[in-house]
């Protein structure tokens, strides 16, 4: 491996890294918002909306992100909806992630025993107070492992953005391999930057998971 080549590539990778991280986390926050809303609608059986939500979850959980992105980026402009590659990236990731996050939140909601609702109602709490003070905090701490697994999954999924010509890490690596044939160096940096992007999340994630488990279960 040629160190000079690696050093000369680093600035390109750093730029791509920040783009990937930015779109990745924008997508994840969007996914969390969509997921919580959808899980709420389904768990509390809000008429009409819950039907739509279930269809949404099934559609997005059972199709690949790459296909979703192709449809949004190349297909939708043909019927008049044009969006930039970057927007397409995080909207696509947010829609895919929303369907996964919804499942995580939903199992969180389901894990709160019905008797918690009853004892809160017996104390005179209103439906709104019941949701915010009793159900949501418990549901979220139960959802933590699922949410963290999804965060890592979604950060990994960012690797397909290059297919809609976003200049992310994959795109940069592929570009450099095609241009200069310094394959080893390009691949090495690709791996290094993905490790930098994901290893801290993975480590912090398992720490948070242990803490959340301790709070609810005491183990």
């Amino acid at each position, binding site marked *: 491996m040629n160190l000079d080549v690696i050093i000369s590539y680093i600035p390109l990778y750093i730029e791509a890294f920040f783009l990937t991280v930015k779109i990745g986390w924008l997508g994840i926050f969007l996914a969390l918002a969509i997921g919580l809303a959808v899980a709420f609608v389904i768990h509390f059986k809000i008429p009409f909306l819950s039907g739509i939500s279930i269809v949404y979850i099934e559609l997005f959980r059972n199709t690949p992100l790459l296909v979703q992105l192709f449809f949004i980026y190349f297909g939708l402009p043909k019927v008049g909806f044009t969006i930039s590659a970057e927007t397409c990236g995080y909207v696509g990731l947010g829609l895919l992630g929303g369907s996964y996050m919804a499942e995580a939140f939903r199992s969180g909601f389901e894990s709160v*025993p019905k*008797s*918690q609702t*009853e*004892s*809160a*109602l*017996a*104390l*005179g*709490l*209103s439906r709104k*107070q019941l949701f915010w*003070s*009793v159900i949501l*905090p*418990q549901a979220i*701490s139960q959802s933590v492992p699922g949410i963290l697994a999804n965060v890592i999954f979604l950060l990994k999924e960012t690797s397909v953005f290059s297919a809609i010509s976003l200049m992310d890490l994959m795109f940069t690596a592929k570009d450099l391999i095609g241009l200069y044939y310094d394959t080893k160096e390009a691949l090495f940096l690709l791996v290094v930057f993905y490790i930098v992007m994901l290893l801290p999340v993975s480590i912090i994630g398992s720490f948070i998971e242990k803490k959340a488990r301790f*709070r*609810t*279960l*005491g183990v």
Partner: protein
Amino acid sequence: MEEILKVNNVCKRYEDITVFENMNLTVKKGEVVVIVGPSGCGKSTFLRCLNALEDIQDGEILLDGEKVDAASKNIGSIREKAGMVFQSYDLFPHLTVLQNLMLAPVKVKKRDKKEVEAEALTLLERVGLLTKKDSFPRQLSGGQKQRVAIVRALIMHPEILLLDEITAALDPEMVREVLDVVLSLAKEGRTMIIVTHEMQFARAVADRMVFIDNGRIVEEGNPEEFFDNPKTDRLKQFLQTFSY
């Protein structure tokens, strides 16, 4: 004496199953009513109807003069009048003991935090759990959890306490500490309806006993008559199952 609770001809049905029908019960202020009966006789469901955790199909329930109905607008304020303690404690696992006690008074009654905290600490001291105020429910034994649950109901200043088999899930050695708390509440004149299987305790605490079987009140009366001279065969049989 003033009537706190009046139950008139109440019926509870699921689809085609009748849990109970024509229930009538009046509870006066300061009275302790103990309900016993075989498993599945409908006594717990009856208790849950009293604060509208279960709906009723017929009749009416008046709590402190107000109609109990889950659909009514001020159901929250009606439920405040009936403090309920469940078999499975149901403390909120994400909150400390003190937070468990303060949640409803602060959120529902909008009372001053400082004042509620002071009251919570006094009550905790009374049940011997002051040192546990910052513990989480999972760090407590069953008996301790149940004592906290009782305090959580008390701090809402209910007109009546509904205790639903509160010792049924406890290890035998913890039953006593919980029942002692209930007994002291009875002595200070609290109005209570208690569903229990602890017959000796029932006899000690009750002003009036009620026996429910097959969804009906079969017999009721003062504890001495009830235990020593049961009139119906069904009650005789039921009481015999508790002695060797």
